[in-house]
């Protein structure tokens, strides 16, 4: 029985970690080419959750069409935020810290906007899955967790393919070290940046849908970007592989602590781990494993 419980916690931890991974990878992708921590990423998650809710309720469709809408919606939204909020500052060659601050202001704006429009209340998805939980050999596993895990793994595999097997993906990886030279080769760097934001937003869209389904939808849902933030630091800022591994570690750690010690100390432990990494291993898990993910683990 104890073993069963443990196994169940591991599955829950992995599915939580997989959502963190989706968010963290999108976050790390933008960081790797523009070198700033994009806090507006959280608003894309939050708005995608609302979008998925609206779409699935209005058109009475199942999980897959809703997922597709969230992917497209999240991606588009991230591109719009880049064009309106970041591009003007990049064109003026403003310091990176301004991009950071504007991204924070944008996330606050969108959070308050949704509160003003719809109120701070929780919205609940109608069931998009036929069964809510699987009972196997004494385990009770929420199906949404499994769907979350599956969708995240597929999304990450597709991302890997795009980054390593397509020209635009190679250009994204190249742009992480040099935003000027690609232009000389005929590559429109603004397009590369837009594609990067689209991918980042699409991943946020997936996580928004699943977070909305499991935690309900509310204006502060985007606050979960902080977990991804922690994961990217533990992973090594800018390293995608590190971010994924760290996300799963964080998901497991949080689930275990919540289950065996108590939910109140969970945030403290996460932050403590992050600070320990910052102090003793600032290049993160990627540095520990000697991981080269194709993007740099450049120090700031």
């Amino acid at each position, binding site marked *: 029985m104890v073993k069963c419980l443990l196994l169940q916690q591991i599955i829950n931890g992995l599915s939580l970690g997989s959502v963190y991974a989706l968010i963290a990878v999108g976050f790390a992708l933008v960081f790797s080419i523009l070198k700033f921590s994009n806090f507006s990423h959280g608003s894309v998650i939050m708005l995608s959750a609302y979008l998925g809710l609206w779409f699935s309720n209005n058109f009475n469709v199942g999980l897959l069409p809703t997922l597709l809408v969230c992917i497209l919606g999240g991606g588009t939204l991230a591109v719009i935020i880049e064009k309106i909020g970041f591009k003007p500052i990049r064109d003026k060659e*403003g310091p990176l810290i301004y991009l950071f601050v504007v991204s924070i202001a944008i996330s606050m704006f969108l959070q308050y906007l949704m509160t003003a429009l719809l109120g701070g209340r929780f919205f609940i998805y109608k069931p998009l899955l036929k069964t809510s939980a699987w009972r196997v050999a004494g385990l009770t596993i929420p199906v949404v967790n499994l769907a979350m895990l599956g969708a995240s793994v597929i999304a990450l595999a597709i991302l890997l393919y795009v980054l390593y097997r397509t020209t635009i993906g190679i250009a994204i990886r190249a742009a992480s070290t040099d935003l000027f030279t690609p232009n000389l080769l005929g590559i429109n760097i603004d397009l590369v940046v837009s594609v990067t934001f689209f991918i980042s937003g699409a991943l946020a869209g997936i996580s928004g849908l699943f977070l909305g389904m499991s935690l309900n939808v509310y204006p502060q849902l985007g606050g979960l970007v902080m977990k991804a933030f922690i994961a990217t630091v533990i992973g090594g800022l800018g390293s995608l592989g590190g971010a994924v591994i760290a996300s799963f570690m964080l998901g497991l750690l949080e689930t275990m602590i919540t289950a065996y010690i108590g939910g109140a100390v969970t945030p*403290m432990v996460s932050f*403590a781990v992050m600070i320990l990494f910052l102090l003793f291993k600032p290049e993160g898990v990627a540095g520990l494993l000697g991981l080269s993910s194709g993007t740099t683990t450049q120090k700031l």
Partner: protein
Amino acid sequence: MSSYLTSVLIFTGINLIAVLGMFLLMGLTGLLSFGQVGFMAIGAYAAALGYTKFGLPFGIGLLIGIVISLLVGLVIGTVTLKLKNDYFALATYGFSEVIKNVLIYFSSFTGGSMGVFGIPASVTLPLVAVIFLVGLVITRNFKVTKLGRNSLAIRNDELAAQVMGINVFKHKLSVFLLSAVFGSVAGSLLAFATYYIEPNLFDWNRSISLIVIVFFGGINSLTGAVTAGLALTLLPEVLHFGAEWRMVIYTFIIIVTMIFRPTGLFGRWEISGRQMMDWFRNRGQRSAARGRG
């Protein structure tokens, strides 16, 4: 003065004291800290618990808050100030979250997430005004002290400053501690300006609003920071929309300003007595010239 206006001004003044601390840190070291609210929480809880648990008067609580903030700041500063930019911002965010969670966790002493009740609202507008003015004078003059000048040298070119023999780390730590004191004092005042405090008063949103105020005014202009602090604290009070729409408009204005004037509204501009004299003199000359012409 109506009691509503008085209380608005008291909270504005307290906010401005915290802004001064933030301005010192950002203006002189270029570091973006989310830790300021952590020190505000320390100051607030030291004063509040000092009173409710031990019957200590406000002044003593305030001093205890400062001492604890300095000690904590010494530890946090020592470990975080070696980090740069985003890393530092993150580590300080971690610090303030840990403080918040400690306050929630040790509920038998701190009251947990329910907070601390029964604090006398004994802070008066003159007291806040005096402390603010003292803070303003310290901040204004800090730039011209040796410590301030060296700090600016570090911000402009850390390596060059190091070569010149400036102990970069020690300078950053001094500025960090000074800003922690400002934060702590603002926190203690806040506790005694309201009847109760809770850990969520010292959250991410408060950190952000402090940072945004300094950026909005311009990190190189004290005049800008103070004006922005006044404007952005009073603005929500002036905009008599529903409470939710205030924040929407507030953040919208900030975004637009940051995009179109990224150096802040004030850039490097400062009010000084001399400038004002010059301005009046020029005006006088111009009108005299006009008179002749």
